[in-house]
């Protein structure tokens, strides 16, 4: 693996709750190398989604630091964090979250539009991405004309649009059936393997995590275990499931 593209150190995140507070992360640290596919796993409430939000600059840590591609996003104000997010990250969520008023192509071009460019300027890139996710024929369709899997593929194409330093996927298959979910995971893996896209995937599904090169297990707000899987074309989950069972998960 090459140089680190993402590094989180001693992340603490507390949320106010009633008169007190809840600590979602308690000094979590991790690092991701450029072109790596990392999965974050953990039981419900372990802090994995919070971790992903901090890694993506959606939220600021209470303490600790997050460095994306050389930029310490935890030290930035809201506006600068937004601009960094725009430039360096791509997100895929469980619910596909497409803009229903825009066509498929416009949804894919959304990051460019937000950056102030016109869709026409990036027509070729959008076509390339739609080809990548197998939706070239549906460029002009509306999101509500697509199946759930197709919608998630559009969301993936959108996340890849700006060739972000890191793609963050939060339970991207959580709302899909097994076959459709596998297609999405295959696309993610393919983008990592062929295009060198760095990916951090949050999931509670071992079959999804098995696509990753490395699995980090979060418990009680910190990264407790690391399960290296290596780059594998078969994505067989058996090894991972055994290791997780050994960890009591």
């Amino acid at each position: 693996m090459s140089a680190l593209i993402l590094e989180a150190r001693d992340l603490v995140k507390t949320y106010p709750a009633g008169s007190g507070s809840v600590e979602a992360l308690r000094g979590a640290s991790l690092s991701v190398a450029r072109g790596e596919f990392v999965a974050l796993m953990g039981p419900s409430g372990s802090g994995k989604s919070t971790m992903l939000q901090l890694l993506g600059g959606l939220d600021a840590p209470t303490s600790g630091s997050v460095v994306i591609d050389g930029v310490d996003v935890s030290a930035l104000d809201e506006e600068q964090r937004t601009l960094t997010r725009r430039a360096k990250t791509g997100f895929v969520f469980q619910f596909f979250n497409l803009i229903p008023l825009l066509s498929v192509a416009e949804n894919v071009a959304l990051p460019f539009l937000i950056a102030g460019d016109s869709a026409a300027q990036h027509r070729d890139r959008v076509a390339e991405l739609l080809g990548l996710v197998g939706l070239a024929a549906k460029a002009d369709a509306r999101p509500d004309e697509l199946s759930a899997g197709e919608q998630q593929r559009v969301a993936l194409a959108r996340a890849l649009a700006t060739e972000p330093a890191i793609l963050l996927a939060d339970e991207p298959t959580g709302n899909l059936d097994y076959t459709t979910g596998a297609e999405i995971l295959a696309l993610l893996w393919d983008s990592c393997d062929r295009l060198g896209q760095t990916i951090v995937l949050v999931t509670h599904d071992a079959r999804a995590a098995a696509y990753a090169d490395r699995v980090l297990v979060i418990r009680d707000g910190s990264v407790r275990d690391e399960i290296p899987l290596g780059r594998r074309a078969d994505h067989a989950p058996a090894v991972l499931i055994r290791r997780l069972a050994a960890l009591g998960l």
Partner: protein
Amino acid sequence: MQLGSLAWRGIAARPLRSALTIGSIAVGVAIVTATLIANQASGDAVRRAAQELLGNATLRVRAFDPAGFTPRGVTTLRRLPGVTAAAPVGERRLTLSTLPGADEQVFGLLALGLDPAVESLVRQPRLVSGSPLSEGDPTGVLVAARWASEHRLGIGDQLLIVGRLPDAPALRIVGLIDDLGLGALERGEVLLVDRAQLDASLANPTPVSAVDLVIEPGTAGAVGAALDAQLAEPFVVETAADAAARFARAQTSFAPIAFLFGLVAMIVGAFLVANTLAMTLTERLREIGLLRAAGTTGRQVVGIFVRQGLIFGVAGSITGVVAGIGLAALMIGFLRSTRAVLVDGLPIGLATLLIPALLGLVVTAVASAVPAWQAAQTSPLVALRPSARAGAGLGQRLRWIVLLELGVALVGLAVYPFERGATSIAAVVLALAFLVGGAVAAAWLLLPLARVVGRPFEWFFGAEGMLGRANLGRDRSRTGLTVGALMIALAAVVALGTVADSARQTAARWVASVLPGGTAIRLALPEEIDLFRPTFTQTPGVAAASPVAEFPAVVGEGSAVREVSLAGIDPTVFQDAGALLLVDGNRATAFNALRDGGAVLIPEPMARRDGLAVGDTIGIGTPGAELQPYRVAGILEYTFPARSPDGAILLSLADAADRFAVTTAGLWALVPERGISQAAFRQAVGDTAQSLAAEPLDATELASELARSLDRLIGLFDVLALVALAVAAAGILNALTVGVVERAREIAILRSHGMTVGQVQAMVVSEAAILGAIGGVLAVGTGLAVAWAMVVVGAPRDFTAGLSVSWPLLITTFLLGVGVAAVAGLYPARLAAGQPIVSTLKHFE
């Protein structure tokens, strides 16, 4: 907890929206309440003023001859059997000044010469301060309190008559009369003075134009017979009721337009209430699904929604009625200050409070009916689906809205004050139809218009503008209704401005057409034509001068005889200057006929009413004498205002002199020489007028004066339209806030993809601004259509210059729409930008 309490909880859960909804109803109810109260106040004031003008008098005997009654005639009237008091009234225009000095002021007033000894038996003008006229203080005068205040004058101040005899003493203000009654004449520019003192101050006595008679009860017939038998001078008798009615007709009535604006506010309010309740249904769909799944019947769900609607209705109506009383007080105060409309007091009757309150309640109840029905029809399975969307389709919702608005319009028309309005019912119905039709069309035209109007915003804001424009298509009926409400308020502004502009154009056209050369001098009293002609023709810069010698005559025979006003003019002066517009007849032929004699130009209203056309013959004469035939040579679009409501019939000065023995004129029209500067000519005319203690008249100034008076009245309606605009803005705020809440997840997604806080705000504000722009575009069309209905259909004879379209008004209104909507979008924009990304995304997982 009872199920019904969900209605309360639903209201309390959304305090801002609930307040806006109640506010929307309240504003509509308030405007209707205020206009009804102000209308009542105006009617009361006109009645009271008319009553005070005649006082205890039962009959007013008016002199037919402009020279007035002779002293002998007045004595005859005083001695008629059954007459207990006879109060002569002398009228003349006076130019007065304050004492010479740095603060000297000069003004023209209508002087009413009264006999203090008998006045107290006939009428007692209400005094704001000071004392009435008295025999013991002949130089004491009364002026209207407001006029005095405007000229910084008070009791004890002295006034000098311009052109008075050398030894005439100064007049002194001893009392200030109320703005109603005698103080209402000439918009308060009136002076009550001892008639004997007036005559002693001037070279020419003031003609006694009328004598008001107080008679013993039951002697009217006998007095009438005695008048015919004993009064040798020509006269006209009016009952006090006739005189009061004539006075009332001459007053400006604002009731119809004011009420129309009350209805407009109600219609805007109804749109917003209907929209808000539909939005509530959308938001509470899942909750309704749960209730239905738990066994709540459709009827119970209807109960929740209807109860909620009634709570809104009761709260809005009560608030509206209370606010309406306050608004009425402000309106009445404003109208008093403009002096454009007579108003008095703050009459609060049960009906004036109940009608708007009931209207508010009915509107809300009907507005809540369809959401309630839709809620009851909602299947729990459908409602609990994540993708569930509530509400009827666009067509169904619009049908319901149209029915609701028609209901409001019908109720409004049922209580519409037509009796004093000049606007026809067809115009009002058309205006309402255009407003409601335009608002409904807004929903259909929303998307095509958004594509066109949204372009500049997309160009300026980029992705934010594009998304803002696209968001408008998300819920077409909701956005369409919001635009519709805004459009109605803006259309009211366009309609008002266009009507005002059309009235201004008509005023300018009228004044310019009757004054050849645009200038005239009005004498205090009619003076000998031959004696004064050189004074006018020799005024520097004057190319030609024509007297306008007004005098009374009669037309018709037997019981159909009626008084008309004639005016003798020099046809050549008017023809050469291009004055007088004919709606029928050849101009050259008509003026030639006047010069040849035996021909008249008649006003258009008279031609219409009497069915007269060019070439017809009418008989005109003096009372008791044989009528002489005159050929109608032309029909005038405008003529000089005169005692006759139709205005003056014009004939040649030669005919006036030969056939009616007219030798005097009170008005001279002056035509400037070619090439003379307007300022120099005006100065010369002013000097001549001053030397004669007369009043110079300028067409431009007269038209501006008419326009100013109109502008003050229109200003009030503009305020009402702006209130409706504020309600519409509240509707935009409401709809956009709901929109932002509904698409919170999308906004969070946009934020997660790098959309900045500023970009989110720009997106929502541009959405609002595009909405405003669409409203503005539609308002321009609809407003012009409403103005057309009011001007061309409603009162074409009052707007003879036709519909005048003011581009600055249209552009300003469009920009107003964009601006108001953008401001209304600020709060939802802030709300959208302030939503935390993480918790919003979590909420929707």
